[in-house]
């Protein structure tokens, strides 16, 4: 047996290793210390990364040949045959590498982060639970990307949705300061519900797919695409798009992602930046043959992505919470990716997925470091200043409380800067190359989307610049910022690694001939990809706009740093427009009024009127209980029991009494009548004998 086959047989380990990790932590975690728990979880993720590397190596040496490794039989009913098989091809291995690689770094980061967080929230015992959930997430994400059929993908899809819920609502009963609050639980519920709506779309797609193709396996579906009616494929692709808008936070189902920032920062980094939200992009890339068959669907997807990108970028401009800015930035960047794969630029989309994983994870983790620094500073304030119950809630996330942190937290500042430059798309950071490739492809395939994305890129650079100036420059606007401390090494080292990746990651697919590794790599799996040439015009335009945006942000926020309590300069400039941005276009309020509140009203109506008053009071109490009681009292008790049975037996007794009364009259005491009776008897007997 040659090595390649052996490595291939390891593929179930990418799922089983994290599962093993979580089971060990679940059972023994209580007895092991925090360091051991974190180490086991990170090791599980790390070993999964090692296996992914081995698989990548196998594919490399096997010239990218797709391999399917069956694992277990799952469903076999009639026409439906869905085994649990692992698909090892370049696309899935790319995702595996990203998930386990970035995931491992985040695991290590989380050891340090959660160590401080559980102490800040006063519940050290919950440390273990976090790592159990993280490993569970890695396992399920691996199921998603390694599945060989849409159904296996869906299992992972649902599973990561569950993990998202569990992790967003990790502190389900406390708020950021450790006081009682259900805000986190509500955010988790919102994520679950929004995701569910997307999942419904996915299910409709799966049903249509089975109806049209009689199978859900990738190979079967893709090989028969030409034989199925385009209408059915259009339906499938559009239903899948609904799933994508749910999972990858596009319009209209993006509303859960900003609220999901309520979860701990490693969660935001891993799930809501690098991996889970990219599942939608992966789905479209995987379904390339289907989308290529119906250009109408492609147009729709691209437009959804493009509009979302611009929409979210504008909202990010008006946010004050450091993580909310990054959340809307994520939505915007996902819009870039979705637009790319929608247009058919699958490699560009996947490239941006990879680089985005690096720099967005980096940004989130660094933001987490900043927040921890603020919390540390808050803790160390002399008692009078950080005050007891009476103090208005101190929000460590609020950028208006920060300022001048580059002096307190230098390492964090530098890595954050690296991430910002990557996101803004300044050459030679990774973000430039991937975003530029998307823009170049867009100009060729879909000019309208090109303009949407370009404007969005402008806004992107602007809000990131705004963030840098507000957080790290100027003077601290709150005493906590003044006392902020740098984070420990266990937090900083993953940040540095990610910063390196964010800086150099562009090398995966430089548009210089011979260097486009990713294009060649993915070309083994996705049909019809070709390396694009470097478009100087596009590159120049985007760089120019980015620099312009950063300069603008410096003018507004950097030149005269904000004072504590000062109004945002952009608000002074744009007035009501800024309010629109800040209030997120009132989308959440709109949903609440139109959908959520109506639903709650319906539920209340059903509960109170139908359930309580109609069903319970009237139907149950009056009709059923009343009927039963009527039955019991009138029919059974009085009717049957008293008048029927009792009457019968009383009647028997009455009959006996009357008979005895009647018979008693024979005993009248008169001897003569007794004699008469004897005579009568004799006569009758003789008569009978005569007649016989």
């Amino acid at each position: 047996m040659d090595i390649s086959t052996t490595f291939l047989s390891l593929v179930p380990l990418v799922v089983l290793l994290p599962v093993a990790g979580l089971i060990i932590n679940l059972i023994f975690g209580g007895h092991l210390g925090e360091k051991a728990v974190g180490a086991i979880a990170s090791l599980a993720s790390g070993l999964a990364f090692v296996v992914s590397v081995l698989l990548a190596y196998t594919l490399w040496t096997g010239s990218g040949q797709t391999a399917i490794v069956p694992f277990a039989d799952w469903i076999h009913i009639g026409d439906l045959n869905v085994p649990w098989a692992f698909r090892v091809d370049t696309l899935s291995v790319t995702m595996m590498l990203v998930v386990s690689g970035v995931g491992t770094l985040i695991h290590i980061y989380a050891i340090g982060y959660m160590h401080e967080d559980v102490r800040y929230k006063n519940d050290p015992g919950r440390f273990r639970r976090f790592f159990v959930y993280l490993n569970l997430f890695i396992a399920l994400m691996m199921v998603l990307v390694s599945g060989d059929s849409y159904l296996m993908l869906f299992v992972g899809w649902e599973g990561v949705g569950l993990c998202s819920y569990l992790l967003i609502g990790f502190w389900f009963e406390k708020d950021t300061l450790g006081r009682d609050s259900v805000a986190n639980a509500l955010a988790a519920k919102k994520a679950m519900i929004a995701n569910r709506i997307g999942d419904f779309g996915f299910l409709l797609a799966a049903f249509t797919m089975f109806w049209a193709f009689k199978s859900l396996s990738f190979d079967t579906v893709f090989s028969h695409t030409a034989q199925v009616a385009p209408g059915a494929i259009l339906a499938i692709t559009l239903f899948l798009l609904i799933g994508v808008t749910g999972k990858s936070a596009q319009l209209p189902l993006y509303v859960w992602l900003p609220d999901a920032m309520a979860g701990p920062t490693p969660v935001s980094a891993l799930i809501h930046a690098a991996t889970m939200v990219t599942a939608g992009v992966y789905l479209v890339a995987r379904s390339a043959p289907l989308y290529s068959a119906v250009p109408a669907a492609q147009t729709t997807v691209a437009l959804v992505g493009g509009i979302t990108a611009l929409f979210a970028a504008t909202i990010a401009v008006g946010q004050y919470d450091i993580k909310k800015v990054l959340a809307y930035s994520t939505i915007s960047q996902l819009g870039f990716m979705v637009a790319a794969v929608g247009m058919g630029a699958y490699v560009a989309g996947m490239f941006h997925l990879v680089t985005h994983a690096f720099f967005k994870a980096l940004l989130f983790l660094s933001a987490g470091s900043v927040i921890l620094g603020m919390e540390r500073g808050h803790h160390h304030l002399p008692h009078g200043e950080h005050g007891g119950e009476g103090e208005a809630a101190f929000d460590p996330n609020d950028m208006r409380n920060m300022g001048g942190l580059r002096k307190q937290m230098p390492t964090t500042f530098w890595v954050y800067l690296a991430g910002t430059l990557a996101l803004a798309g300044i050459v030679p950071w990774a973000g430039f190359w991937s975003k530029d490739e998307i823009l170049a492809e867009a100009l060729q395939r879909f000019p309208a989307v090109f303009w949407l994305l370009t404007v969005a890129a402008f806004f992107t650079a602007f809000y990131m610049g705004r963030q840098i100036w507000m957080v790290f420059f100027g003077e601290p606007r709150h005493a906590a910022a003044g006392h902020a401390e740098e984070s420990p090494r266990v937090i900083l080292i993953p940040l540095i690694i990610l910063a390196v990746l964010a800086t150099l990651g562009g090398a995966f697919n430089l548009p210089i001939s011979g260097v486009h590794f990713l294009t060649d790599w993915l070309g083994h799996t996705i049909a019809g990809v070709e390396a694009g040439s470097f478009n100087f015009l596009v590159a120049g335009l985007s760089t120019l706009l980015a620099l312009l945006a950063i300069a603008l942000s410096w003018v507004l926020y950097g030149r005269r740093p904000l004072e504590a309590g000062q109004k945002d300069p952009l608000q002074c400039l744009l007035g009501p427009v800024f309010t629109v941005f800040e209030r997120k276009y009132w989308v959440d309020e709109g949903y609440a009024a139109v959908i959520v509140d109506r639903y709650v009203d319906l539920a209340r109506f059903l509960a109170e009127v139908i359930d309580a008053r109609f069903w319970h009071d009237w139907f149950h109490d009056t009709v059923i209980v009343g009927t039963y009681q009527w039955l019991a009292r009138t029919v059974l008790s009085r009717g049957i029991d008293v008048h029927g049975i009792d009457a019968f037996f009383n009647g028997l007794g009455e009959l006996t009494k009357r008979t005895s009364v009647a018979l008693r009259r024979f005993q009248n005491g008169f001897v003569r009548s007794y004699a008469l009776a004897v005579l009568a008897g004799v006569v009758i007997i003789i008569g009978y004998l005569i007649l016989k």
Partner: protein
Amino acid sequence: MTNVVPLSYYLGISGFLFALGILGVLIRRNPLIIFMSIELMLNGANLAFLAFSSAFHVLTGQIFVFFVMTVAAAEVAVGLALIVVIFRTKHNIDVDVLNSLKG
């Protein structure tokens, strides 16, 4: 002279006397008269016995009548003694008055 009376005639008389005796038992309220009616019934039976005895030339009937008479005598003695005792307590021998065993 030859006896030309058929047996059935004797039996008829016997039956008639018997029936009258029964009537007497049932209709009269004086216990003494009831007793006498009983004697009448016994007589009727005796007559029938002797008629058969004579018809079949056997003595058995006569023996029977002998015993009947003896027993009748004993019975009358006891019965009259009872009536005397009843009269002593009730001071009235009307049979209809002796109805305290009624249910």
